[in-house]
């Protein structure tokens, strides 16, 4: 766009030459003065003045319509610059009623820019939109469709839906296209309100106009994303459409930069990727056309590369096939070798997809990847880090994580810093080669991004230090701890440390500071006191610190040594005893109390290195049984569980109800029940449960249904509670929560990566000579030795894999439950791969199959129909065929495609039925995980329990904990 270069000059001249008719001098002056404004404040002043004058003039009676149009445009301009112009909204709405197309369009434009879809004024426009959708003038219809797309909300969809559906059969293809897309938009807004119209999308797929066909791909893509299985029958149709597009059977007008309808191709490839994912049979139909496109597509144009990239995505998503995989790898390497940053970016992304299927592909691109890593382009760098993250294994984790940390330190963008920090933590936890390295890495991450990390990461680190890495070797564990203590004592000298990191440091020092006898108790206590002094305003750190001091004192007392109270420690205790925070107060008093106890009592309160011990928790308070028995014998009234008392929910019932219906807190309109005489303790349980349900508002029944549903899906979690749910307190369930702490959720989000890693190892073992192969190739000589070294450390070194793998799998069961599953995943994947390899070795030459596939299956061919516009339609004969052979999948579409009402009606209705039922299924399927995701009191309880168990709950208040232990 050479011409655009003239812009600056013209702006400087304030040129007003001819072009912009219809705008008044005032508007030109406004724009000009804003353009010349020196500061933001000056600009704001100008705009505010403009808004003031508009407010006055727009309210004048009898403003000429053309003048009004200009006012509205000026309002839009003012709002674009970020100023409120809401006083003019109503005038924009009025303008949509105008008969003149020009004014009407301006009105619509303004309201679509001004109003959100839940604005009060929308209701005034719906009627106009309705009327305009019925207009004879197709341009007005188009304008109304555009406005409907933006403004119609869930409530008003029914008002315009009939008109939009009628427009699907409009003679103008531009209108049909927009109607399809508007319907799609409605579907996005509220799937339920157009669910009965979904068959229309299938029908329009066979529209005479390729543009309309292309438009239907958008809604179909969404529908297929939501529910793949009900659209498997369309695979053959999509493939044949794609084939014809790629073979240039569309009119020339659809070409874009010599590419036949590239946007349609891209969308089709996306759809096929969804349909073929994990489906061997469907994928079988796709290979052929993918091969064609790889061969024909020219990679010189931008859009050609876009199609190629989409092909690679499709290949990586569908069931693997050696031939297309090779073609994809070849295209990827072309991308990576290109000089264009855009293509490199796409190449890195494509590589990330392909290595999921075959990790070896990365090997030949080592240097390209490293170049991208050192590129000044930030986007490319991040993409490359993403790739490295995907291909991390125990052999290259050190290099990758070190690089990531360096990058993390160098950037200021907190959002990305958080992301990359949590990735570092995850990789370090998963693949750490040594304890020393792990601790160092975590220190670096915490030091530079501590405030951005999730608290869970800190808890995880503490747990790892406490439990060790799972080797049964106690010596290694204590070595780990003392190295942690050493490094923390060193780091404490730094002036500014993130609060989260300080918490970890305090906890570890408290637990293990004196364990190896290297440091004296008073030294550690002094350090801890320094921490509190340096961070006066942070209560959490103080709490950690005082608890740590308490532990060290306790260990000293237990060991029979005398605890000399440092003056700074005493003053700290005094200060905290008078703290505003009750939590800190309590901790201070507890410490004071502890100091007065004898060594035996102290040992049972604070046993040495017991953070990993399970705390026995008797939820039924069975040790009180004899006392209760005695009291009852003496004539006391027996305890009535809360749930059996009239008119109250059981706690568990209330909690779970709260969980599911948190949003439905509405006013009760029915009267409260009359108070009942207190029931006898022996009230039959059934009547109780019915009474409770009576009290609950109507949706309760569905809730019970989902609860049961959930229970059946998740047996271990809520097994017991679903059966006689809502009747008694489930303390036995609670008791389990006090068991061994698990931080399982930390890496569960990365199961896909683990899969990759699993695959990685297997393949790595099978091809150990790759690295040397690469070296012998002796790439470009100008490549620096350093890069080579880096490459080797990233990609090569497959020799050491086996032992490392052993080590890491040993570690796995303890590290996280998700990693514990890793071997399982590996096992599950490996047969599939070997099978695939076996299948690909005697290849039925898929790429050269040529025509046969299309001839064997009676596909429908919208474009033949299209071409048939000139000649006679070839339809009828195939049509009969298809109706008779209704078992075949493809003809289903055919019947929809014929617009003859009698035959199509039935098939539509059956298709509708299908859609309905499948919709329901998917809804049900959706329900279950959503329940899981919701705020789960059990989860939080568990978390609370574990946190407490580790001995660090500054936010909690559980004074009973100690009493229980003592008692």
């Amino acid at each position: 766009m050479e011409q655009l270069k003239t812009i600056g000059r013209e702006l400087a001249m304030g040129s007003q030459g001819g072009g912009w008719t219809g705008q008044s001098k005032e508007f030109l002056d406004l724009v000009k003065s804003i353009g010349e404004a020196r500061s933001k404040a000056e600009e704001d002043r100008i705009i505010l003045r403009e808004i003031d004058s508009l407010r006055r003039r727009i309210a004048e009676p009898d403003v000429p319509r053309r003048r009004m149009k200009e006012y509205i445009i000026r309002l839009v301009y003012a709002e674009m610059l970020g100023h409120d112009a809401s006083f003019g909204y109503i005038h924009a709405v009025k303008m949509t009623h105008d008969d003149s197309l020009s004014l009407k369009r301006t009105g619509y434009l303004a309201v679509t820019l001004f109003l959100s879809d839940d604005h009060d004024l929308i209701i005034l426009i719906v009627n106009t939109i309705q009327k305009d959708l019925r207009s004879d003038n197709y341009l007005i219809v188009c304008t109304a469709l555009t406005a409907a797309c933006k403004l119609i909300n869930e409530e008003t969809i029914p008002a315009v839906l009939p008109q939009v559906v009628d427009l699907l059969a409009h003679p103008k293809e531009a209108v049909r296209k927009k109607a399809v897309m508007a319907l799609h938009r409605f579907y996005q807004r509220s799937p339920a309100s157009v669910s009965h119209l979904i068959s229309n999308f299938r029908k329009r797929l066979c529209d005479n106009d390729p543009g309309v066909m292309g438009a239907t791909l958008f809604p179909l893509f969404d529908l297929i994303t939501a529910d793949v299985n009900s659209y498997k029958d369309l695979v053959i149709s999509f493939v044949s459409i794609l084939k014809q597009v790629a073979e240039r059977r569309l009119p020339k007008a659809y070409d874009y930069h010599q590419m036949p309808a590239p946007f349609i191709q891209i969308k089709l490839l996306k759809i096929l990727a969804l349909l073929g994912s994990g489906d061997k049979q469907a994928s079988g139909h796709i290979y052929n056309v993918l091969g064609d496109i790889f061969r024909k597509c020219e990679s010189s144009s931008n859009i050609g590369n876009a199609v190629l990239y989409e092909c690679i995505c499709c290949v990586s998503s569908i069931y693997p096939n050696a031939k297309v995989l090779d073609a994809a790898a070849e295209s990827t390497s072309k991308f990576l070798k290109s000089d264009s940053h855009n293509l490199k970016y796409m190449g890195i992304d494509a590589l990330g997809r392909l290595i999921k299927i075959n990790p070896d592909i990365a090997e030949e691109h080592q240097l390209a990847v490293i170049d991208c890593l050192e590129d000044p382009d930030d986007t490319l760098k991040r993409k490359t880090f993403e790739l490295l993250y995907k291909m991390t294994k125990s052999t290259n984790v050190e290099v990758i994580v070190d690089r990531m940390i360096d990058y993390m330190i160098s950037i200021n963008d907190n959002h990305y810093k958080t992301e990359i920090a949590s990735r570092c933590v995850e990789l370090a936890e998963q693949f750490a080669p040594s304890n020393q390295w792990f601790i160092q890495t975590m220190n670096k991450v915490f030091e530079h991004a501590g405030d951005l990390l999730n608290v869970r990461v800190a808890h995880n680190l503490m747990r790892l230090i406490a439990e060790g890495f799972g080797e049964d070797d106690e010596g290694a564990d204590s070595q780990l701890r003392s190295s942690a203590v050493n490094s923390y004592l060193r780091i404490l000298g730094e002036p500014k440390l993130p609060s989260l990191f300080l918490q970890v440091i305090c906890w570890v020092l408290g637990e293990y500071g004196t364990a190896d006898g290297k440091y004296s108790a008073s030294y550690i206590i002094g350090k801890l006191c320094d921490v509190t002094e340096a961070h006066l305003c942070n209560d959490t750190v103080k709490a950690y610190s005082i608890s740590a001091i308490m532990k060290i004192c306790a260990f000293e007392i237990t060991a029979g040594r005398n605890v000399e109270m440092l003056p700074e420690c005493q003053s700290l205790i005094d200060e905290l005893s008078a703290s505003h925070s009750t939590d800190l107060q309590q901790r201070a008093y507890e410490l004071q109390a502890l100091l007065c106890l004898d060594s035996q009592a102290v040992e049972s309160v604070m046993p040495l290195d017991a953070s990993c011990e399970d705390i026995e928790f008797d939820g039924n308070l069975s040790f009180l049984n004899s006392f209760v028995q005695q009291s009852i014998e003496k004539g006391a009234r027996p305890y009535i569980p809360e749930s059996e008392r009239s008119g109250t929910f059981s706690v568990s019932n209330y909690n779970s109800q709260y969980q599911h219906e948190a949003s439905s807190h509405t006013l009760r309109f029915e009267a409260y029940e009359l108070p009942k005489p207190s029931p006898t303790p022996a009230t039959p349980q059934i009547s109780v449960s019915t009474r409770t349900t009576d009290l609950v508002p109507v949706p309760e029944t569905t809730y019970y249904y989902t609860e049961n549903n959930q229970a059946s899906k998740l047996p271990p979690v809520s097994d017991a509670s679903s059966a006689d749910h809502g009747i008694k307190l489930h303390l036995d369930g609670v008791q389990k929560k006090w068991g061994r702490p698990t931080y399982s959720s930390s890496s569960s989000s990365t199961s896909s990566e683990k899969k990759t890693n699993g695959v990685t190892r297997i393949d790595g073992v099978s091809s150990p000579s790759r690295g040397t192969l690469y070296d012998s190739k002796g790439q470009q000589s100008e490549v620096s030795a350093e890069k080579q070294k880096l490459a080797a450390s990233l990609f090569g070194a497959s020799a050491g894999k086996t032992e490392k793998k052993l080590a890491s799998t040993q570690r796995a069961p303890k590290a996280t439950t998700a990693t514990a599953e890793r071997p399982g995943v590996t096992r599950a994947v490996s047969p599939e791969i070997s099978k695939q390899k076996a299948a690909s070795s005697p290849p039925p030459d898929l790429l050269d199959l040529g025509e046969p596939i299309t001839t064997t299956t009676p596909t429908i061919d919208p474009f033949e129909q299209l071409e048939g516009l000139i000649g006679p339609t070839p339809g009828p004969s195939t049509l009969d065929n298809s109706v008779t052979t209704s078992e075949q999948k493809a003809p289903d579409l055919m019947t929809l495609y014929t617009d003859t009402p009698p035959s199509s009606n039935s098939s539509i209705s059956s298709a509708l039925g299908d859609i309905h039922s499948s919709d329901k299924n998917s809804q049900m399927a959706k329900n279950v995980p959503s329940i899981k995701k919701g705020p789960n009191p059990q989860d939080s309880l568990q978390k609370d329990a574990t946190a407490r168990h580790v001995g660090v709950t500054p936010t909690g208040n559980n004074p009973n904990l100690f009493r229980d232990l003592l008692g």
Partner: protein
Amino acid sequence: MIRAVIVMNTQGKPRLLKFYEFQPPEKQHELTRSVFAVLSGRPDNVSNFVEADAIFGPGTRLVYKHLATLYFVFVFDSCENELAMLDLIQVLVETLDRCFKNVCELDIVFNFNKMHTILDEIIFGGQVLETSSERVLKAVEEISRLEKSSSSVSFVPKSVSGRFGR
């Protein structure tokens, strides 16, 4: 889905904002500013893609093109292809250039309602509607022709709709 189209000049002044999911004016302004902050920090000769999840939420990316004094920015989610979006910017710019004959920033400032018309013919409700600048131009010309004639004969709108219908 395309989330937004932003055209702004190299000083960060918005020249056209179109959000396909409603954003209040203040939010629009804020988003534009953060996009500008990202773009102005990027050197020349780098890729045209930026991951925008810090600004527009997870999974969003943006593609931009820097032409003369203007940035053309398309924001979209994972359902679109970056290279294809880059070409869509090309379509928009080509169409503008044909429409205004040597398009410049001032054309866009003073005719931003026309620019909206063009954009509406290319992107509809966040989806790509048309990629041939010829056909976009034809549609836009038809609209402006009708606008002109309708404003001159606006007293008898019936006859207009009769003549131009179909």
